[in-house]
């Protein structure tokens, strides 16, 4: 009789353990959802070992760059935690795969860097000069220079978008084909998003020497 009473008392706990262990979600759950909100530009001086933000010029044209801050808004969040009085930490693993994914609602489809002053003989004011810039990337000690459009629309930002703790993103764009002559220059960067919006920002007029 006593055994039956103990068994009846333990029955909910056993059922809870079974549910807690072996309930695997087949469909991926979206834990967070972001949208791109705005961008901010800073001028970089890359004369040294690492690029540093410099508010005032003049800038060495061979060592000039832009630091891009991409700000995002969190527009949805789902913890996905089931309601249970049995903590999953004490449950045995049933080998469920982690199907949760985190993604941005919108993605970057195009990036344009435009000179707002005459840059050189082949790039007049209003011309796109994205190809003269590169983003420096590093992975396990290996460094590469990536085209700006490829970086912004490729896996680099997509993987960064999947980081739930990384709300805003920052990367450096460096000028690798400087103009022959020094002078006053001004640039604009445009990010075209998958929902049709365009985020853009201009640099102040800067002195390249």
């Amino acid at each position, binding site marked *: 009789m006593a055994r039956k009473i103990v068994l009846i008392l333990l029955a909910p706990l056993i059922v809870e353990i079974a549910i807690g262990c072996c309930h695997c979600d087949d469909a991926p759950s979206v834990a967070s959802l972001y949208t791109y909100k705005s961008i901010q530009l800073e001028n970089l001086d*890359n*004369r*040294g*070992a690492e690029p540093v933000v410099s508010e005032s010029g003049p800038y*060495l044209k*061979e*060592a*000039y*760059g832009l630091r891009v801050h991409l700000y995002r808004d969190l527009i949805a969040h789902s913890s996905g935690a089931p309601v249970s009085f049995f903590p999953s930490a004490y449950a045995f693993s049933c080998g469920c795969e982690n199907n949760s994914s985190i993604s941005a609602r919108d993605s970057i489809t195009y990036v344009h860097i435009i000179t707002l002053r005459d840059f050189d003989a082949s790039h007049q004011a209003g011309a796109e000069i994205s190809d003269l810039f*590169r983003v*420096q990337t590093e992975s396990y*000690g*290996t*460094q*590469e*220079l990536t085209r700006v459009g490829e970086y912004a629309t490729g896996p680099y930002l997509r993987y960064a978008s999947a980081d739930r703790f990384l709300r805003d993103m920052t990367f450096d764009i*460096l*000028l*690798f*084909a400087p103009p022959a002559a020094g002078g006053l220059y001004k640039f604009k960067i445009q990010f075209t998003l998958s929902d049709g919006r365009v985020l853009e920002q201009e640099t102040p007029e800067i002195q390249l020497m």
Partner: protein
Amino acid sequence: MRSLLVLCVALLPMSQAYAQLSKPYSSRWQTRIVFGTDMPIKNFPHGNAADYLVGYDSHAGYLQIFNSSLFFSRHWGLDAGYQIQMPSTETESDFHRQLETEYGDAYYVTSFVDGDGGNGHQGRGNLGLIYRFESKRLLVYPKFSIGFTNFETNSGTAYLKEKNANTITQVRYEAKQYSRTPFTFIPSVSLGYRVRNRIAVNVDIAGAYFKSNIAYTKQTRDLYSEVISTEKLSMKRNALVLTVGLGIVFTIYEKDGK
């Protein structure tokens, strides 16, 4: 090293059973444990960054984990052994230091060596003839062996960020083979003093000479223009070291079947 001395002390009382020393030339099969160090007489030159990727250290300490002699006559026998060596070089930091010397005036240098950073394996094996002179206490064993020295040839990469410019150049030193195992000539003499019936302490003095052809490819790539230039580095290297070691000789089997 300390553990080997402790082992010596521990083994001496165990041989109390052998009250009398064996007769000279009675041993058939001996084995020994030796530890010691290499000392360079002729070292590899170090002229460029690739030289520092070659994981051979002529100052390496060693432990002879296996050495055995089988005597087939009164004086002559066969001797074989293998020693693991403990190189003390810091390949990654030495490589970086050399790159700083070569490029540091004009560039900021970052670098890495593939794998575990180049602090890898080094060893030497030998097989040869042994000759013996023995008295009641003293053992003198000249030997001549041919063997091999094994060491790693690592690959490494440097990134040169130009000072006052955005330009970045990748310099890759790629070894043709991951490791080298050149033939090695090893004349040596082992001097022993019998302390118990089947146990002697000994000093090993050896020379080791080898010649190795080491090939590297140096690839220089401008990361923006993707312009690549390639240079072959062929390095003929000779090494001659003197090795000195201390150890214990155990007689496993004697002539009369004991």
